[in-house]
């Protein structure tokens, strides 16, 4: 069989043990598939969405209730975005817990980490675009947090909000960032990330003499597996989106009491931290420190080449421990914010 365009995007062969689901979890591939779904569904939503505070909730109601299959489309966009946070988080954990951040993949690890941060921003801006009573609190709290950053806080706030308070300009800015600025950045980052995967020698593997098996799979098998994963994930997504609606709320009524004083789920841990003290320290500095620690992992515990290609390499223990602590803390903090006190 002659390789097609899609086959040519893949290396001719890759080592068989490292092509297994249980090694890669397929997380990077799933994240890529979800990104494609997001771009496609987002582009379709853009035909109906009206970026103004008065019209945004109505246009979302139009998509949700009146456009044939509009609810499915919106739910697909929503669920893909939520899953993308989980799947790219999983991908990050896989990379750390297999030591794949070690040079020569260190730079690509940072590219991936940056993409993960962008995904969080994309999720938050997308969440805010609902512009309904369900997101109002998080929008106000999130942007006010910017003000607490010393020296540059006020400028950051004005840059994000487009004025002294949330209004028309805020929505247009969030819209611009969501559909253009952040999307363009993440598309470039993902393309670079995938290019670097091949440039750095594919999925992290031990040196040839340390491999358990010399077997390799062809690009045809690889594409077949990817297509299989895409089909199954697509089926799951469609099913989820057909029956579990994305959240929607009534319009924001100025002066009305807050309907839902809760951050979106992926920032619940920050909300919990904010309850404990100074907004700058707990809301910005601690999350940034956690991110910096993750970024420093390639220096903290570089993994020996012969230990690559399998889970939990011993020379990466410190990195694994740091990540486990950060991950557990995020889960526990999120649960604390989510569960009724």
């Amino acid at each position: 069989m002659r390789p097609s365009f899609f086959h040519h995007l893949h290396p001719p062969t890759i080592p068989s043990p490292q092509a297994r689901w249980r090694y890669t979890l397929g997380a990077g591939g799933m994240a890529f598939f979800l990104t494609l779904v997001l771009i496609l569904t987002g582009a379709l939503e853009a035909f109906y969405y009206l970026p103004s505070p008065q019209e945004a909730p109505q246009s979302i109601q139009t998509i949700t209730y009146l456009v044939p299959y509009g609810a499915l489309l919106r739910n697909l966009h929503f669920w893909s975005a939520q899953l993308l946070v989980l799947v790219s988080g999983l991908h990050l954990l896989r990379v750390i817990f297999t030591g794949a951040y070690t040079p020569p993949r260190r730079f690509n690890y940072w590219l991936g980490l940056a993409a993960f941060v962008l995904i969080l921003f994309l999720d938050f801006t997308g969440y805010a675009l609902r512009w309904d009573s369900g997101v109002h609190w998080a929008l106000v709290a999130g942007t006010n947090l910017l003000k607490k950053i010393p020296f540059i806080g006020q400028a950051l706030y004005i840059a994000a909000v487009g004025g002294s308070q949330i209004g028309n300009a805020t929505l247009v800015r969030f819209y611009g960032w969501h559909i253009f600025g952040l999307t363009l950045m993440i598309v470039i980052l993902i393309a670079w990330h995938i290019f670097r995967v091949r440039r750095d020698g594919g999925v992290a593997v031990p040196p040839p003499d340390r491999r358990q098996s010399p077997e390799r799979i062809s690009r045809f098998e690889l594409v077949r597996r990817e297509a299989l994963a895409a089909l199954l994930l697509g089926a799951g997504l469609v099913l989820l989106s057909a029956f579990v609606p994305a959240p929607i709320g009534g319009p924001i009524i100025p002066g009305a009491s807050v309907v839902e004083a809760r951050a979106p789920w992926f920032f619940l841990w920050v909300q919990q931290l904010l309850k404990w003290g100074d907004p700058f320290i707990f809301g910005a500095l601690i999350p940034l420190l956690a991110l910096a620690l993750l970024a420093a992992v390639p220096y903290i515990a570089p993994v020996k080449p012969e230990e690559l290609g399998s889970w939990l390499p011993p020379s990466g223990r410190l990195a694994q421990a740091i990540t486990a602590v950060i991950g557990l803390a995020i889960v526990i903090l999120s649960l604390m914010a989510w569960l009724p006190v």
Partner: protein
Amino acid sequence: MKSLAFPLACLALLAALLGAAWQQSRTPKPVALIPTLTGQVEYCLTCHGDVPEISPSHPVKTFGCVICHGGERLALDKTIAHSTMRGGANPSDLQFVEASCGGTNCHSGAADLHNDHIPRVLSSLQATYAGAVANVLYTFGAQNDLLAHLSAAPLPPSNGKSLPALNPSTETSPQVLAFAQNCLNCHLQAQPRPGVEYSRFTGCSACHTPTAGIDLASTNRPVIHKLTTAISYTQCNTCHNRGNYDLVKMQFVPRQDHPADRLNDYYQPIAQFTRCEWTLDCIDCHTSGEAMGDGLFHNTKKEAQYVRCQTCHGTIDQLPLTKTITDPDDLALRLSFLNPVIDLKVGDTILVTDKGEPLWNTRMLPDGTYELFDKATGQRFTFRPVKGSACQQKADEQSSAACHACHSVER
């Protein structure tokens, strides 16, 4: 197995897509309405197609639903669709009435007083209850005069003016406090007391939506979507004639009976009344200026209520005031158009009050007598002027008690 995986995955996706199509087929078909007044599509009728039209003056094709009720016109989810409604099921509640019913083409901001309905109601004693508040405060030493300074509840301003609300938490007199707590449930802004005999909504709907005798708390009651100017005495009775205030205990003492026979048990035992007071409906005599307000903050009911026996019957010296309709846009013609119990025309002569309000359901007959059509039932009555009759009542003694001396009904 390997060769089956791909077709099976395709089947899974197909099944999921079929599931999505099935789910889409289950969603209700949106029913669109584009009211001519707003020109904006609304989908309320998807669920509310069975609600009857509220009145011939508010056809749904012209008004739609949202212009009065608010709400999210595009949402097909109950919670979201209803999230921005004004006043729940009753947008005429006085807190929302300006947004729901106001506007210069509607019920506020009109150049002529009569059509300035909302400011009239907001200043009226029905809304402020200010006369009773002033009397009680004066009686118990909480104010020095009998003038209306406070209203029973916070109200939006009427043409820029409003009375501050009586605030029970700042009252020191136990009687005034008890009054504030026990006696303020009859004005238009108050929720009615529990019980089917008090069954009414708030705001405009208190009078204009017929609820008398319907248990509003019942979950299986019919939808009451009606506005009318043909207001029966039974609707007035949801506030009036329901019992007495005990000024010692500062409590409302509701009457225990449920008056069914209007002649024998409607009025309380000590009351004197004439035939027209139990055969006609309240609004046949009491004009809209009296009942709905005239834009002034009156101090007492006595100031606001001015229609007397002589308004229709005159005195031994004078015939009642009349007016011959010449303008095809005359207020009397417009009002009779809204409630067509009488076929009033240009050239007809009708009775008018001494403030000039038309008694548009009356007409002078060629023989010098008059006819009146009951606004609620359409029933025709005829009556004569006092002048030329055997009545000897002095022209300057025209209180109701003076007329009742001869004309009260025995029961």
